Every structure is written in structure tokens, then in C-alpha cells.
């Protein structure tokens, strides 16, 4: 894991002091509310429906047990004993008070954390593959690149007042688990024909009210040119991105309106005039950052684990957990364990302070002191010995964290929606809870197989519904919540946006409709266990359309 040096430490401490001072100038009236707004947003502080919300950066989702314990302590001291993990690999507290915010920032700084640029029209905290350093299909760990970008973008003098927010994601694997195609900039670490490692740069993806898949603007960028190239993109966007309409201000609209070719030409022109050598960092500095992410001290272990096999043979619940929640590790004898924050009937992504402490203890003892937050709002224990999975599982059971549903139909992403968010047009957490209850039977979930449901409480799409295999968007129709269902979205390698199944339906009808979509899929899928998304891609939406008409016999078409 990255550790701050004296420079990083000073910047974060100074930012805390600066924010304290900014709060003081807001209170004495020197700053108007309008002027203070972007300053507090750039420190992650939102005004929500009931209270302030503080969003803490967990850069590229990586943290250690000490940091997790501090997050638990903050939850106890300043919130109501829990925190909410988000689709941006962050944690949010929903009940802090404005005057406490600087003290919370201080506590975060004590464990090398911060809230810098977790909101506002600036370059946001950078996300990366949650299986970084674990996955066997990795060209290179994406986190050194993400950390480099974190530092470069921190308090960037030129790019702190952009037309709109700006999100960057990095993946180093063949399989894209970081959804790079739907970010403002997506970065894929790739190898060229000569075997050199570099970056494929994708610009202009995004969700929100105008979802778009990003365009590749550079097939192969040499590694040491990254920062200068990013500066060129940011500059074109800062100068030319639309500022007349908030809803057209993201870079995706600029790319779309100019056309990819013209956009690329602008970027390349700017890139040619920039002083690249002064912007790009010395390879020695890159190496310094990368060294922090060197593989931890793995033991030489055999493939597989008799201990685990025997334990799983004795206990069907453990066996199920092993089948569903383990991800193969590149090192023999190790595995990555997904800890689901989606218990049936619970709010997706929430963890109590006790659960956070339990996770910290487990990570310290069994996962080389490392944890990851995923953009699916779960936690990963990245480096667990297969032999120790039974102990990890037992500890998770005790903490109420052993839901065996990673990647299954009840592993639902839901934005805060009407329960917390002032922009919401509908509820999303209760919808997720109701759907999960329908599929509570673990055998049924496993029979259905991988299926991602994503729910947003308004058109802003924080729940990423466009890229849900099943997407649900809550709208307001003459004062009544109305839900639109989309099918066929996918955030991964073959990124695609879901298509609307038909007219919106009432909240009460959503769980039924989802059940019938799943039943229809089970009837249509090939015997070889064809996945939901593959089936939808093969048969299209038509066979699913009858499910939205509750009065008629649902399967007539199938």
C-alpha cells in the first residue's frame, strides 16, 4: 500500500487547516454560501436531505486495518454508528455536523486519509480494479498509475474549476472490472506489439441522463507520457466543455458534439504544444510509487487446500460461500474473498462500526492487513490463504457479514435515493430490499447465477442503472414513484447500455416484474448455464416484454 511521505503528509494536513479556516470565513460572512459551496464540495461535504453528508476518499479502494478502524471510530463519534460504502469506492457518513467536519478531517489525516476532491467540479478520486494485484490476467497493477494520478490531480491549479465533475478509472486486467468505458477518462494498461507496457486512453464515457460509452483516443500511450497527455485532455475540456448547461457539461457531451475525431485532433494539438518533459514524472519517481504496491510477502503454498475442502464438505453454508464469494488469486494457495454488504433486506453498502472493526481484525489476521472497497459496494479481503478461509468465514458469520451472494441477483447496487438524497425522485434502497427478499433462497440465487441489478433514484444514475444487467430507474410521475426497467446493460469488456423494456411501473410491481424477468430468463437460457446477460444479448428484449403487463398471462410469449 502507498504510504505518505513528508510531502503528501503536509499537503493533507494543510488542506485540513485550510478547510477549517474556510469554514470560519463562511461563518463570519466573508464567503457567501455560493462561494463556499464549491470549497466544501471539494472537501467532500454535501448538504443532503436531512443533514450534511461527508464523503471520504478511499483512493482506488485500498485501505488497511488501521484506516478501517479509524473509519469505524468516526462512525461512532460523528455519525450514528455506521457508514455507507459507495459505487466510487468511497465511504460516506450521512449525519455529521458542519462544525465537526474539520475534526473529522483531522482524524482522517491521522491515518493518511482525506476527503480531497470527492465532490465538486474537479478531478475526483481515482478508482481502479478491486482485484488489483490479485487477478491472474493483469498486465500490471493499476494502483501505481492511480496513485500517480491522485497526486497530480490534487489541488491542480488549472483544473479545480472545471465545467463539471471529472472521473478517472484505471484497470490493468484483460477483464475490465473498473468500468473504464463509462468514465470521463478510462485507462487500460496494455502491452503493445513490441511487448512494452503503456496505456489505452478512453474518453467521454459516462452515465447520468445521457449515458455514453467512451471513445478510444489513444490506442497506445507510452507509460511515461501519461501526465502530459492527461493535461492535454483536461485543457481541451476546461476550455471547450460547455458551461451554459449543467446537464451538457460533462466531457462526454464535448466528445459527442465535436465528434471523436475532432476531439482527438484538439487533444493532439494541445499535446504537441505542451511542455511534456516538465509535466511527466521521472521514471524513478514512478518506480518509487510502484514499489509500495509490490506484491506482499506471499508464502509458497500448494495449489488448492485440503483443509478447506474438508471443511466445506462438512458445512454446506461454507461450501456455498466458497462457491460464490471466492475469486481466484494469482498465487497458489491464496484467494480473494468478497465480503458482501448486501444482506437480504439490508441497505446495500452499509456497514456498522462493529462490522468495520470486525473486517479490520480479519484483514489484519488473515489478509496481509489489506482491504478493498469495490464499486459494487462490497469489501474484498484480497490475500487470504485457502487454508484459512474456514476461519475467515466463521468470523464473518459472527459479524453478520457472510452473505453468500457476491455477483448474484441479490448483490444489488442502489444509490441512496429518496432516503437521503435531495435530488431523488424515488426511493431506491427499499426497492433493493424488496427484490432481495424475493430471492432470499440461496439455492434459487445460485441457480440464477451471475446477475447484476442496479438501481438509481433519479436520472443522475448514481446507481449505474444503465449498465445493470437489469437496470431500475426511479422517477416521479405526477407525484407517484414510477420505475423504468432496462435490460442488457453491462459495465465490463463489452460495455453496453441497457434498453428500456417498456413503460414505467409502480413501486409495488417492481419485485414481481424482476421475478418474472428472471423466470423468463431461466426458461430461455441454454442448458450449458448461459448467463443472464448472454441470454439477453442472444434473444433480445422481446421475450421479456410481457412481464410488464401484470394482468395477462406472463409467459405467453416465451
Amino acid at each position: 500500500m502507498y504510504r505518505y511521505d513528508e510531502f503528501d503528509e503536509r499537503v493533507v494536513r494543510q488542506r485540513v487547516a485550510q478547510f477549517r479556516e474556510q469554514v470560519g470565513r463562511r461563518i463570519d460572512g466573508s464567503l457567501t454560501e455560493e462561494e463556499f459551496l464549491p470549497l466544501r464540495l471539494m472537501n467532500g461535504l454535501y448538504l443532503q436531505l436531512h443533514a450534511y453528508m461527508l464523503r471520504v476518499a478511499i483512493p482506488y479502494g485500498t485501505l488497511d486495518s488501521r484506516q478501517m478502524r479509524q473509519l469505524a471510530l468516526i462512525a461512532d463519534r460523528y455519525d450514528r454508528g455506521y457508514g455507507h460504502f459507495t459505487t466510487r469506492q468511497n465511504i460516506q457518513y450521512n449525519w455529521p455536523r458542519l462544525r465537526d467536519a474539520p475534526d473529522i478531517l483531522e482524524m482522517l489525516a491521522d491515518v493518511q486519509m482525506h476527503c480531497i476532491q470527492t465532490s465538486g467540479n474537479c478531478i475526483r478520486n481515482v478508482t481502479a480494479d478491486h482485484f488489483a494485484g490479485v487477478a491472474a490476467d493483469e498486465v500490471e497493477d493499476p494502483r501505481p498509475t492511480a496513485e500517480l494520478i491522485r497526486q497530480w490531480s490534487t489541488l491542480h491549479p488549472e483544473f479545480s474549476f472545471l465545467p463539471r465533475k471529472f472521473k478517472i478509472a484505471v484497470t490493468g486486467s484483460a477483464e475490465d472490472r473498473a468500468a473504464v468505458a463509462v468514465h470521463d477518462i478510462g485507462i487500460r494498461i496494455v502491452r503493445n506489439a513490441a511487448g512494452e507496457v503503456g496505456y489505452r486512453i478512453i474518453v467521454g464515457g459516462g452515465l447520468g441522463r445521457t449515458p455514453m460509452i467512451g471513445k478510444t483516443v489513444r490506442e497506445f500511450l507510452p507509460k511515461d507520457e501519461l501526465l502530459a497527455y492527461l493535461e492535454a485532455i483536461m485543457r481541451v475540456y476546461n476550455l471547450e466543455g460547455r458551461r451554459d448547461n449543467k446537464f451538457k457539461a460533462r466531457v462526454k457531451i464535448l466528445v459527442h458534439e465535436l465528434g471523436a475525431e475532432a476531439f482527438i485532433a484538439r487533444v493532439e494539438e494541445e499535446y504537441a504544444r505542451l511542455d511534456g518533459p516538465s509535466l511527466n514524472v521521472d521514471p524513478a519517481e514512478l518506480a518509487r510509487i510502484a514499489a509500495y504496491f509490490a506484491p506482499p510477502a506471499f508464502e509458497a503454498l500448494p495449489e488448492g487446500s485440503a483443509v478447506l475442502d474438508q471443511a466445506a464438505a462438512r458445512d454446506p453454508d461454507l461450501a456455498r460461500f466458497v462457491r460464490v464469494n471466492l475469486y481466484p488469486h494469482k498465487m497458489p494457495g491464496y484467494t480473494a474473498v468478497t465480503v458482501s454488504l448486501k444482506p437480504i433486506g439490508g441497505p446495500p453498502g452499509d456497514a456498522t462500526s462493529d462490522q468495520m472493526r470486525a473486517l479490520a481484525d480479519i484483514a489484519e489476521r488473515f489478509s496481509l492487513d489489506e482491504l478493498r472497497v469495490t464499486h459494487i459496494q462490497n469489501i474484498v479481503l484480497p490475500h487470504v490463504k485457502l487454508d484459512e478461509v474456514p476461519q475467515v468465514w466463521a468470523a464473518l458469520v459472527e459479524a453478520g457479514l457472510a452473505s453468500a451472494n457476491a455477483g448474484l441477483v441479490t448483490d444489488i447496487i442502489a444509490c441512496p435515493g429518496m432516503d437521503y438524497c435531495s435530488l431523488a425522485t424515488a426511493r431506491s434502497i427499499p426497492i433493493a430490499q424488496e427484490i432481495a427478499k424475493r430471492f432470499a433462497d440461496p439455492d434459487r440465487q445460485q441457480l440464477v447465477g451471475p446477475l447484476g441489478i442496479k438501481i438509481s433514484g433519479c436520472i443522475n444514475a448514481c446507481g449505474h442503472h444503465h449498465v445493470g444487467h437489469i437496470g431500475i430507474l426511479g422517477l416521479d410521475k405526477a407525484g407517484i414513484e414510477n420505475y423504468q426497467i432496462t435490460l442488457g446493460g453491462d459495465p465490463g469488456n463489452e460495455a453496453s447500455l441497457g434498453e428500456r423494456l417498456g413503460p414505467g411501473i409502480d413501486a409495488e410491481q417492481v419485485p414481481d416484474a424482476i421475478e418474472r424477468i428472471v423466470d423468463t430468463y431461466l426458461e430461455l437460457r441454454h442448458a450449458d448455464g448461459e448467463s443472464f446477460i448472454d441470454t439477453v444479448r442472444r434473444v433480445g428484449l422481446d421475450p421479456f416484454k410481457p412481464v410488464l403487463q401484470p394482468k395477462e398471462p406472463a409467459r405467453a410469449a416465451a
Partner: protein
Amino acid sequence: MPLLDRNGWKPESWARDAAAGAAIVPFDQVEAVLGARRPGQRIGVDLPNDVHPNALLPWQDGLDFVAIAFPRFNDGRGFSLGKMLREQGFAGTLRASGWIIPDQFAFALHCGFDEVEISEAQAQRQPIDQWLQAPALIGETYQDTQDGMISIFKRRRAAAEAA
């Protein structure tokens, strides 16, 4: 309008009057005014923030001063414009003019601005000490800046090599 730089309030030495000895003129008049320049007359230009810096290239050697408009404090185009003008060799005085707040003063200095021109009302609300202390609040940058700060990346290398 009140004018300040990193040392405090300062008197205005320019006038938005093409006949003045130090004259600021609108961007679309720059060609004409430069053509009619009196000996010894200094010329500056008011640059809207939607003009690409390339547009100033033909004139910039004849200009002693550029004021870049900040119509709203959260419209950050001026930061890029200022920096790009410096990078393309503009060596005169660079002013941020309009609505910028003390919390952005460091960014403006880092992007190559020398001074800031704000409204009377803003100057009342945000006294000079707030402007002077703001840039000192963050004493490190991860970027090389136009006002001479060396990026943390480079300082780390220098420290490593010295060790």
C-alpha cells in the same frame, strides 16, 4: 476597481481608455490600437475567457498587459488561458479580472497571473489579509507552477539524489 497582488492592495496604473498612456482596450480593437500606438504608449487588452490563446499570438509581443475575464468565480477557463499565455511566451503583466475569491488566489498565481482585480463589494467582504494569507495555506504543489514552485515529484527526486 480594487486591485491587489501578492504584496497587498496596489494602485491602478492602467486605464480602459485607448488614448491613455497605459491603455487597456477590448480584444477586438487590439489590431487597430496597436497600429495607431503613440511612441512610448503601453497597450493592454481585455481578453474574454472564450478566446483561444492562439488568437493572441500575432499581437502578444506588442502587448504589455492582458486582463483575463473571470465572469464567475467557478468558471475556471481563465486558469488555463493564463497558463497557456505564459507557456506561449507572453511576458507582460497578467491580471485576473472580475470575480475570483481568495481561495483561488494561489491557483491564479500558480497559473501565471500577477494581480487580481475585484469588485468594491467583494473587497469589503474579503479584506486584504484574507488574500495575503490564502496562498500560504497550501505550501506544496504536485505541479510545477508559473510562480516558481517545483512539483513535489521533482523535489522528491532532488531529495533522493542529494541523500
